[in-house]
């Protein structure tokens, strides 16, 4: 008998009980708000990996240790195979990070690290179609090494035979990158601010 009752339960038209909904939504939203505020304070690291149409990343200063760079390409859904410059940084700090991501008709602008506390990222890997800076300083640099033998950023290396370079530390001022793919193992985003529309300076 109980089995047959189940049949009816499955088949019964139902509706959403709003009080019941509130029981779940209220604590969920509260916890999410706590998580968001902790992230905006830089207390919690977020995991970021975005890809897609070219988007813009700017920062007033990038400091990194364990830097390597090599050429590669990405196959994008929109525009076929694109050559990219892959930069990997083992650990990086970025001042006044701004990232403009295009999602369909919307442009989302994410800013963080505007104040004294910079954004911190580990295992930051960026596939960029172009990269520019007002000045750059590399320490312990090797240019022209085989891309397959790069060791500065563990776990990341290019194709064997390719042209690569690596450096122990790197500093780039006024970084502007057009990237296809950005990923970081962890990203602390103090002063996180997300807005729609607009672009990065």
């Amino acid at each position, binding site marked *: 008998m109980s089995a047959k009752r189940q049949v009816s339960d499955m088949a019964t038209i139902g509706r959403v009980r709003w009080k019941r909904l509130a029981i779940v939504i209220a604590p969920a939203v509260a916890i999410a708000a706590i998580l968001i505020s902790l992230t905006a304070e830089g207390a919690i690291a977020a*995991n970021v990996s975005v890809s897609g149409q070219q988007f813009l990343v700017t920062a007033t200063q990038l400091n990194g240790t364990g830097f390597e760079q090599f050429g590669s390409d990405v196959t994008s859904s929109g525009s076929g195979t694109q050559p990219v410059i892959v930069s990997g940084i083992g650990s990086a700090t970025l001042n006044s990070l701004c990232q403009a991501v295009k999602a369909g008709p919307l442009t989302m602008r*994410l800013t963080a690290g505007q104040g004294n506390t910079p954004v911190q990222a580990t295992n930051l890997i960026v596939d960029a179609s*172009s990269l520019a800076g007002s000045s750059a300083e590399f320490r312990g640099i090797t240019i022209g090494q085989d891309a397959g033998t790069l060791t500065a950023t563990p776990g990341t290396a290019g194709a064997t*035979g390719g042209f690569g370079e690596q450096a122990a530390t790197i500093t780039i001022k006024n970084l502007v990158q057009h990237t296809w793919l950005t990923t970081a193992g962890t990203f602390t985003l103090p002063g996180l601010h997300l807005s729609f529309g607009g672009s990065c300076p």
Partner: protein
Amino acid sequence: MPTNQEPSPPFLVWRAAGERPGPSGAWRESWQRWRRTRPFWGGLLLGLGGLELIAIPLTGVLGHGAIRLVIYIGIGGVFGVLIGALMITCGVLICVNPAHRIFYGITGVVLGILSFPASNLGGFFIGMLLAIAGGGIAFAWTPLAPEPDPSVVIGEPGESSEPDDPTDPGSGNLKGYTYYEEFQPPEGLDELDELDDLDEADEPDQPEAPGESGTPSGLRYLGLAAVPLLLAASLLGVPGARAATAAPQQGAGSCILLIICLPSPNPSPTPGPSPTPSGTGTGPQPSASPSPGQPGPPGKSRHKGKHRTASGPDLVAATASSVITAGSATLDEFVYQGAANVPTADGGTVKMMKFTATSMALSGDVTATVRQRGSTAVTTSPTFDFTGSVVLYATKLSGCLGALCVTLTPGNAVAVLLRLTGGLTGQLTLTLTHVTTDQPLVMAGSLQSGRLSLRAG
């Protein structure tokens, strides 16, 4: 069956286009009934949220780009994709197996919250909000008839003697509908029980929880449809795990598409270019003898090179075509160390000239051009200042000293340099103009660059 009860204008248009009215109406109605007998919108929102979470890291790159992304992000980033996959699974299961809607709904809400730190800030909030809303709706969805009388259940569709409570605000205009699934004949139930028995062989002695196990609708077997999703999610996880474990031994090999792993010709890339002890002030050395052991183990050939005065570097030179040009180059304490056999990734060596200097300042539209696999990467800067025991290897170096323009190659470097410097060898400061360096391999304590621009095209 109450068909064509509420023909809406689009429906009429559709029918006018020549569709058979009966089946389409029946289809429409059964779809509607299917939708209303389960927390469909909750499941849909949850699934959409999961799709959005997966789409952000993966849409832009296909093929090996996507695989490389998974390698990059490693096990931590795979969680982001995994959370999206789990959300889709929960969304599908909510629709397929609404009896477990509470568990799937709560799981969806928890996954939505987790996605904020784990997956691009919850897909830039959108996926997180969709998941919280969808999971909440699935949790809050309740059947209208709280305790249906068994006598109502067993009956032919349309025979129901007990319509829905007319005072219930939720019934609305659905009064004319039959709310019951196709009645399962006892034989069908028996078959399903047999399937249950088969299942219980795997999980013995599971107590029958009322209202969960023994759900005979057979719908839970449709839950198997979610298995491919889970499989896909776990497959996505595997390369990340492999990349993570492979990370410490990255120098040992290079993997293409995770499948073809080539053994590296240079087993242990030791850090840092060690300056050669014989490099101070000595004159040009005769070029290193061609190493006979070239096809042998690459480590062997490297050690052979080390015994020569102009030793190769402890690293592997790129074979991609590369050129650095500059308007002028000023080299302090510039010394030609001789020709060296520099190992390359294919196991062979390439003969290069080795120079050392305490500093090397390039200026005047410094351009580094790299061509590989049909694409070009160009780095430009007004100045490149290398300092701190600069070591330069190159297959060809050309430039002008005043009006005298020369091209150095490993074969003629000694004679040309002697001519260029008027017999002086050893430490000197040299300023060359119109400098071009082929296949450069540069090591330096530091590099200061002016306005830097890199472009791939």
